[in-house]
């Protein structure tokens, strides 16, 4: 399988503070890769660097092209979509308007509309609240909206940043069920999670980062729970 995304020596600095030190990571097309690690390990900075909202050093090769100097908007056009940490849905817009903005890069309006119907069928609650202001949705509903909005651009690579954060266990189970479905449909996914056990169950491969560096990479099945704690501590 060819790599859809390859990070080579990725670095992210915030002023004098280095959040990511020379991180290497690859994702093959159709793979679900989990990026695990404790708070402040550099996971969200890595996502920020891939989307282009955070300035970074090193190389980001997506679909054979170095996108590391491209503005964030151009990366979306190339096929990267994100469901950001904290969901970041547009609270002052309706559910329908949120989904519409997700499809902003698309020229095929009719197909985009049918995609919207498909996502609503997957998350019926979004259909029930289609004309409601998104800020009035519950946390779980907002997360569903954030994922559906990202899918509206028909991405090649979906970045999911902490999709289970702050949600009730029952909702988390549904979100993970949905991610499993996306994987089964052949979508390439980079999943950033604090909920390591759930993420490892879904992922083909796992990267563990601590203090901005990869401390483990390999098949999820080979990583036992006891090792994870040591890796989180950076050993």
């Amino acid at each position, binding site marked *: 399988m060819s790599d859809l995304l390859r990070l080579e020596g990725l670095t992210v600095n915030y002023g004098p503070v280095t959040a990511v030190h020379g991180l290497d990571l690859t994702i093959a097309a159709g793979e679900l890769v989990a990026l695990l690690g404790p708070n402040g390990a550099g996971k969200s900075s890595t996502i920020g660097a891939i989307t282009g909202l955070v300035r970074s050093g090193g190389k980001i090769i997506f679909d054979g092209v170095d996108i590391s100097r491209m503005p964030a908007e151009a990366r979306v056009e190339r096929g990267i979509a994100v469901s950001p940490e904290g969901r970041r849905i547009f609270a*002052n817009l309706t559910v329908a308007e949120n989904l519409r903005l997700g499809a902003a890069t698309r020229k095929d309006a009719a197909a985009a509309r049918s995609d919207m119907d498909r996502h609503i069928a997957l998350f019926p609650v979004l259909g029930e609240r289609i004309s409601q202001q998104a800020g009035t949705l519950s946390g779980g509903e907002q997360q569903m909206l954030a994922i559906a909005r990202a899918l509206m651009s028909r991405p090649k690579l979906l970045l999911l940043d902490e999709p289970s954060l702050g949600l009730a266990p029952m909702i988390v189970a549904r979100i993970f069920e949905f991610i499993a479905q996306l994987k089964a449909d052949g979508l390439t996914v980079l999943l950033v999670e604090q909920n390591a056990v759930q993420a490892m169950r879904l992922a083909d491969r796992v990267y563990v980062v601590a203090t901005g560096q990869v401390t483990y990479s390999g098949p999820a099945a080979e990583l036992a729970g006891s090792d994870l704690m040591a890796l989180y501590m950076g050993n």
Partner: protein
Amino acid sequence: MEYFVQQLVNALAFGSEYALVALGLAVVFSIMGLVNFAHGEVIGAIAYSLLLTASVGLSSPFLAVVLAVLAGIAVSVALERVAFRPVRNAPTTTGLLTAFGVSILLQNMFQLLISPRPQAFSLFNGMSTTWHLGPYSVSSLQVMEFVVAAISMAALVLFLNRSTLGVAMRAASRDFSTVRLMGIRANRVIAAAFAISGALAGIACVFILARRGGVAPDMGFGLVLKAFVACVIGGFGSLIGAAAGGMLLGFIEVGLLAALPQEMGGLKEAFTYVIVTLILLYKPEGLFGTRRELGDKEF
């Protein structure tokens, strides 16, 4: 009764003018967090452009309206490109100082290149005739001003609700970086905000010229200060607030002019600001602003 109707139309006309200029400020502020004090000089630049085109013989009022809107869009978008884009990521005060700098620079340019003295300009004088509606006589210009302002605002609302760019602008007013994650170019959203602001300035400028019958280098500055006050009353960043604040300011001013005895006419501004202060004491966030306490977080 007739006096009352005339004053009502008067207030609606003044209010419309403030509302159009205030909306121009609010559209840019809601997206960039920039109070564009150079907006008045955009109005000035439009007025001088019309003076120039009239001097070369293009003197149809209809053509002038189209030219005013186009000049407004061109000047406003050009200012964004040249002056505000380089400081877009700088602290808010830098943007504010840049706006003042541009304002002073343009005023001085008008003085040096054209004339420091006001120029008479009568292109739109024909617009002001008296209409007799039943027992009431009203100025056609004032009625037109209210009608055109209402149509412009309705068009703006339609644009913001129906077009993808409009929806993106509403989203950007709350969370700009996430709008970029939808693949919508930041430059496009900001240029659209400045273009709308310029178009509104163009419409406002036509009525200002018709009322004043002249052009002066500092003609826009006082007006922008009034529009700024209108935005504050309405709640800064809120478009409905800007329109409502402008209307309210028009009503307060005309109401005071009608209510105050002649010898106290000079105190109109003082009373206006007393009323504005009272409104803000009652609602510090403005009529349509959202109240935020320190530490509030929005999800």
